[in-house]
């Protein structure tokens, strides 16, 4: 396992929507990295490479730096990254003092060697900067950032999910390590602790789902987080939660699948599995965030939904968010709406599953003891095989979904007969593509929601009026498009399944081409 690793940064004075198509600067530490990525550098971009490690011909856009040698000359060989940062700072015309200020803050740790470390790092920054300057490299002026009027936090998608969960009052988290969801478990083990709180690494996803259902049954707000393979293992447990009417949240940070698949690559291919993870007649609520910021609010909403309709809710995140570190507006916890389930407080002899809709839930220790039953049951919770009971209970369970039709959505140029409607992380590149197309005067509308099931009813109504709804999604089958079609929308997928996010230019080209003759809907057989 393994292979080359890469880190990518995108800086803008405007909100960053996607990873971007092209590279302004490529830093290659190996020949392999240089060969693999040089074609992604835009015209006028610059390649920095480690000339101590390999040789290519320097030219107008290629600059070799003897990184280790320069670092050693500062007296601290570990300052190699600072040599590069200095060179990049020059390329983007960053004010000289920014990085030295950062170094002084970062390494002022009250340790004996701090002064020497700071000195070497600042020297390394200058050396890198000087190399780029003396050779005349630049990629132009980067606008100076304006500090926004609101406060910000810097979080990864997995952090945002974790913070959303604790902000919504999560009590219990039980999970099993799996890429790319592990960071949520790690966060919870460290932070979801104290009276009434419990976080634990289970022995498997089978244990995790059943344990969080136990906690949900006992009255707690409970959650687990996993990826595709774990979701598969949790399927029977999710069915149990649906059947017993137990609030619980499952986060699926999607990766390439099926089976072990592509654990470190992104894909939007678990949608159908998340909608119907369990066998039998069940269809699970799904919230799929489309930005790092939405990861926070999706999780808050998922916990609220679980409490409100008393059942499992799935948050569908993606590998591409898991480790994406982004500055987002700091959530105002005072403005969050936090919901709690309706709890039964009457006498003994309660019929917990009575009626065609939601009923208050008894909690152990309190009145109204009942059997939460994974078998079909009567209103008391006892097993039954009577046909009319299965009819009643099935309808009751589906009826409760109506409580979740409060999802919001984005709509722009709703008068257009053709609309672009991405879901999840394809929102970013799709939005950039949409902006480009509108600027060019192309007639296309925009829809987006993170509430994939149930869909906001009014959104569905609007979509049904469209001549064509184009759905960019990272899977072979066009999963969301097929769901929309099943609900009477003329939807067609724009698919990609190479483990990578969409490039904006590809979307622009494919949407433009498809919109030329929008009659009819193409379906992959």
């Amino acid at each position, binding site marked *: 396992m393994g292979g080359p690793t890469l880190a990518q940064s995108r800086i803008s004075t405007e909100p960053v929507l996607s990873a971007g198509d092209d590279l302004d600067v490529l830093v290659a530490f190996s020949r392999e990295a240089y060969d693999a990525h040089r074609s992604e550098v835009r015209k006028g971009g610059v390649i920095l490479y480690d000339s101590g490690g390999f040789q290519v011909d320097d030219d107008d856009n290629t600059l070799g730096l003897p990184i280790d040698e320069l670092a050693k000359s500062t007296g601290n060989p570990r300052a190699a990254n600072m040599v590069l940062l200095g060179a990049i700072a020059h390329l983007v015309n960053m004010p000289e003092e920014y990085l030295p200020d950062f170094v002084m803050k970062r390494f002022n740790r009250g340790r004996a060697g701090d002064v020497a470390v700071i000195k070497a790092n600042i020297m390394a920054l200058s050396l890198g900067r000087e190399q780029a300057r003396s050779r005349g490299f630049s990629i132009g002026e980067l606008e100076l950032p304006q500090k926004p009027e609101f*406060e*910000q*936090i*810097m*979080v990864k998608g997995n*952090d945002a999910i974790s*913070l959303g969960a*604790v*902000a919504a009052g999560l*009590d*219990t988290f*039980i999970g099993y390590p799996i890429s790319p969801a592990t960071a949520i478990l790690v966060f919870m083990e460290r*932070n979801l*602790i*104290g*009276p009434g709180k*419990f976080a*634990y690494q*289970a*022995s*498997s996803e*089978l*244990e*995790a789902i*059943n*344990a*969080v*259902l*136990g*906690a*949900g*049954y*006992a*009255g*707690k707000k*409970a959650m687990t987080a996993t990826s595709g393979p774990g979701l598969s293992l949790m399927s029977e*447990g999710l*069915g*149990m939660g649906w059947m*017993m009417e137990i609030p619980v949240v499952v986060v699926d940070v999607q990766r390439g699948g099926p089976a072990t698949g592509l654990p470190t690559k992104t894909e939007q291919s678990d949608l159908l599995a998340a909608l119907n993870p369990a066998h039998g007649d069940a269809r699970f609520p799904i919230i799929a965030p489309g930005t790092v910021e939405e990861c926070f609010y999706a999780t808050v909403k998922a916990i609220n939904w679980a409490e409100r309709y008393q059942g499992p809710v799935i948050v569908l995140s993606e590998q591409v968010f898991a480790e994406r570190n982004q*500055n987002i507006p*700091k*959530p105002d*916890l005072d403005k969050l709406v936090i919901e709690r389930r309706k709890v039964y407080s009457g006498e003994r002899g309660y019929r917990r599953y009575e009626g065609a809709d939601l009923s208050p839930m008894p909690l*152990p*220790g309190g009145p109204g*003891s*009942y*059997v*939460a039953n*994974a*078998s079909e049951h*009567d209103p*008391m*919770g*006892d*097993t*039954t*095989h009577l046909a009319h*009971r299965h009819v009643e209970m099935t309808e009751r369970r589906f009826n409760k979904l109506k409580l979740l039709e409060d999802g919001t959505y984005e709509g722009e140029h709703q008068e257009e007969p053709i609309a672009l409607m991405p879901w999840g992380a394809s929102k970013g590149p799709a939005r950039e593509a949409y902006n480009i197309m509108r600027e060019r005067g192309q007639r296309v509308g925009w829809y987006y929601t993170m509430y994939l099931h149930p869909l906001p009813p009014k959104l569905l109504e609007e979509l049904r009026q469209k001549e064509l709804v184009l759905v960019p999604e990272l899977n072979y089958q066009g999963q969301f498009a097929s769901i929309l079609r099943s609900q009477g929308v003329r939807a067609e997928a724009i698919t990609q399944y190479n483990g990578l996010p969409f490039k904006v230019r590809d979307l622009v080209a494919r949407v433009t081409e498809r919109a030329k003759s929008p009659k009819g809907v193409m379906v992959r057989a």
Partner: protein
Amino acid sequence: MSKKNPEYDFKWCPGCGDFGVRRALEIALQRRSAETELPMENNVVVAGIGCSGNLVHLVEGPQPFGIHGIHGRTLPVAFGIKMARPELNVVVAAGDGDFLSIGGEHIAPQAKRNLDVTAIVMDNGVYGLTKGQGSPTTKMGTVTSTTPFGKLEEALNPLVLYLTLGVGFIASGFSGKPKDLADLIYQGMSYPGFAIVHVQSPCTTYNDTYEVLKGNPQKGILPVLWDVNANHDRTDRDAAYGLLRKGGVPIGVIYQREASEPLEERLKRVIQRIKLQDARQLVESFSI
């Protein structure tokens, strides 16, 4: 609930050992309620799938809370309930198929965590609900519907397994003696840690072992069951292995670890020594 609910149509066969286990559980729960002065609703019975699991619907008198879940996952559900609400008394009721076959992977983690729940394993050596297939405790060579030419696997010795996995309280009981069994279950519930009460609970339809267990002097059949001697040192693990090596099925408390700190107490000690952060502080820690 059976008497109160005519709609519930499940029935154990006449003579089924599970009747005795149910009676024993009722006695133990009522005794606990009386002694702790906590209502019956303070108890949660987590049942598995199989004939045994129906026990949760059949308890008479004041009703505990119950779970009748999916096959093999009683311990994970109990784990979640107990750690969410440590003040609850959580009891698992599962059969040999549910607990030792499909659910076997969940025993070791609870033993190592010392989860404070009591598991009652109702062992009839067969899958009864699905009409007579071999189970982990079915003897080698036995003919069942899935072992038509005799079972090719050796029978598992559950008591040796529990002891080896480090279960803190291990008792062995017999459904034919519900009062004695109730006492073992009560001891298990009083033990601060993971307790298993393994019960011989024969299936009269598919694997009737009453005669084998109790013996039949007229036919010259010696009983398999024998009472653990009063002077057995239950805190001595080697002595416990010694009992199990004697053969047959000893009835009584096999092993009880002297010092037992359940998971929730370990967690309390951690909470005392670390600095806790609320949601606001956690969000703040990501400020830029």
